[in-house]
């Protein structure tokens, strides 16, 4: 049995900076989606039995990078065409903004987590692969807890709004938890709006609005991978 036992969302980095100075010190160098994912994960792992042994499944942003990185990419690419790059140097902090597994690494360092880790890339619908991976790991008895986290932004080029989501799963039920009954896929071609965090946030919102008992969350087509429809069946307690 796999239970969703806690979930958090974060969209306000100003609040994180003000209310969690230690966390902000750790994440300030990173780009927005990573900061938001880590802020959400930091909160949800307060409900974990042991943050150092949980499986970590992390979704890379579909809109990666940062405004600084895009500006720099443009300067370099244009400079190459004119042969004017010379001894140009890149700020290592901006290099970090290009790294797809950054949230997973930063989480591991912060929580001294050496456990199983799976970084999923910034393609549409990978959130549901992450959810399937959680079930596979916990059902097989590899770990007792798993973190699924994601952060993304509406656009990287101009520092548009972002969202971080973190979900904690356990093989042990809690007084308020939702048992993951099944994840069902069916063939369904659709247009998508790639975003690492919106789909998971939508599922959590559905669960939060549900009274006790069985429920099905039909993933909106635009939040899938564009090849398969996804329905998540749960039992809420």
């Amino acid at each position, binding site marked *: 049995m796999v239970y969703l036992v806690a979930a958090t969302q974060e969209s306000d980095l100003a609040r994180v900076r003000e209310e969690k100075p230690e966390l902000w010190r750790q994440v300030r160098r990173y780009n927005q989606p990573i900061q938001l994912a880590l802020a959400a994960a930091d909160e949800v792992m307060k409900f974990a039995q042991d943050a150092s042994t949980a499986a970590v499944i992390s979704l890379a942003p579909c809109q990666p990078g940062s405004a600084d990185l895009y500006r720099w990419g443009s300067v370099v690419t244009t400079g190459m065409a004119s042969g004017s790059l010379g001894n140009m140097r890149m700020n290592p902090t901006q290099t970090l903004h290009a790294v797809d597994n950054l949230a997973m690494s930063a989480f591991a360092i912060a929580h001294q987590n050496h456990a199983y880790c799976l970084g999923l890339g910034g393609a549409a619908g990978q959130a549901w692969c992450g959810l399937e991976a959680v079930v596979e790991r916990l059902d097989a008895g590899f770990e007792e807890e798993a973190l699924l986290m994601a952060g993304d932004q509406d656009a990287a080029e101009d520092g548009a709004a972002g969202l971080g989501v973190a979900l904690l799963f356990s093989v042990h039920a809690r007084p308020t938890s939702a048992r993951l009954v099944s994840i069902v896929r069916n063939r369904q071609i659709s247009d998508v709006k790639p975003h690492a965090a919106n789909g998971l946030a939508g599922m959590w919102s559905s669960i939060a609005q549900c009274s006790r008992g069985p429920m099905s969350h039909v993933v909106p087509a635009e939040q899938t*991978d564009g090849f398969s429809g996804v329905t998540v069946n749960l039992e809420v307690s």
Partner: protein
Amino acid sequence: MSYMRRVVITGMGALSALGATTHDLWNGLLANRSGVRRVQRLVDSGINVTTGGEVDAVSPQDLDRDHVIANRAIDEALAESKRDAAECGFIWSTGLDTFQMGTGGFVHRSAGRCFSNLASRFTGPRRMIAAACASGTQAIGEAFRLIQNGHADACVAGGSSVMLTPFYLIGFAGLQAVAIDNGDEPSMACRPFDKRRKGFALADGAGAVVLETHESALERGAPVFAEVIGFGVSQDAFDLNRPCDDGAGAELCMRRALADAAVSSEEIDAVNAHATATYSGDLAEAAALRKVFAERWQSLPVSGSKGAIGHAMAAAGVLEAIVAAQTCATGIVPPTVNLHHVDEGCELDHVIGDPRDVNAKTVLSVSFGMGGQNAGLILRRVSHGLHG
């Protein structure tokens, strides 16, 4: 767990600096040849990193280079396996977003969109792996696990990267990870475990393997290159830019792979090392190997491929797993190209100069990603061998 199916490799495809096929890759390594060279368009740009592992088969002007390189490796693997993409899952890494110069100016290429386009001809599961330099190895491991546990019957796994852009060359140079120009012969830019190492040479590339159950391979009469028998991952939880000095994270993933395969370290016949030629990376890897292989480290052949093909990032692990599978199939361990003077702290039984025929049957292949993700695979020769 009721399902524990045997999983084998029945097709392989590779585009690297050594050529456009797995045959080119393997033969180049056996010949102790480096495909890394000076890249004229990088010279023209004026930056101080001008060597790399370029894939000649696809024009650098082709803005669809990321798709084309990946699809060629995938098609080679599927053709060899005689499988159709529509029968397979797709576990793949397309690496990082890239920035290129198009006819209309600056072009941003999304790795996620590239993955989705590549995935369109496959049936599920379709998972995009993001574990930096360990991505290719983890992609194979995740596909192995899906098939082993009955969640898929066959998968194409691997990765592709287009990294030879000023954006990444300057970025990695800033992290002191790539070998900048200093007058050396370009083909010797990357020298794993060597006293004169100064970082890796970035490379483009793609590698793909077809994985399926041993049972289905036998039924179809497919070629079997190797069996995947173990997979392990770990996180360093140490630093974003460098490994633990004692290689503890790397050691943990190796031990997990051994435990998963239910084999002892004595049963490993050879190691395909990550061997990036970075100062701290090689030291940490050597330390980890000496600990895992305890009494045997002086007589266990170790070989790395990046001296010959550079570091193809998301493709690196799968290109190296392909080499490991060839070692399983033939028993031969290729040399580590450009290794001449083993550095203090990097002592292992390195294969130098000529390939070594040790009748290797069980091989460990490891990859360590920037940020501290580590992945290891154990491959084993299947008794009925290369030709079914």
